[in-house]
């Protein structure tokens, strides 16, 4: 179980900014999210960075309860 944080176009495609999904690794969490949100989300995920608790992460990292997995599409600040 991990907390999902979906931002910008990822939030829009999923229809949610925060969610909770099951999974042992970051990869598991993302697969569950794709199953839940569908192909538009998958497309955005494919060009996004994924952070675990505010830091860039490997996709095989193990997630604990209440860890935050954030999906960050290409940015456009400033």
């Amino acid at each position, binding site marked *: 179980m991990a907390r999902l944080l979906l931002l910008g176009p990822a939030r829009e495609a999923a229809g949610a900014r925060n969610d909770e999904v099951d999974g042992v690794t970051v990869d598991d969490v993302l697969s569950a999210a794709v199953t839940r949100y569908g192909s538009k989300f998958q497309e955005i995920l494919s060009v996004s960075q994924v952070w675990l608790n505010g830091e860039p992460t490997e996709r095989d990292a193990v997630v604990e309860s209440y860890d935050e997995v954030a999906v960050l599409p290409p940015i456009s600040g*400033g």
Partner: protein
Amino acid sequence: MPSTPTSNWVLVTPERLSLEDVTTWATHANCGAVVTFSGVVRDNSSAREGVLALEYETSTELAEKRIHDVIDEARVRWPALEAIAIHHRIGRVELSDATVIVAVSSPHRDAAFDAARYCIDTLKVTVPMWKREIWEGGSAWSDDASPILNAQEL
């Protein structure tokens, strides 16, 4: 408002940004130079004319953390810097209003110019922030998006 002799002021806020406030705050007694950059909403983008406003979305916590990383790296590169303020507005921002302000003070101007430019260039590719362009009758995510990089690598 913070005002220690050497200090950082990071803010991600839905409120209007004030260039006067950050410049006054950044002006320390030993500083001869204050350089500011204001990014403002302009009426066109790479995709279209007639832009009326921009709307910014982020995680305030993640954005402020990454802005601090930009400032930390600037201080490594230009140790003579005094104050650095970086404020980013979120939510809807109207035409000609500031979306981001960088202010850097320094005893001499070269470091202030170099660091202000580094800060805005680096913010744009390291800080999580997503921008929608709003025009008469529609809106869309900005085309000018880039993958997230890390401040130390730039």
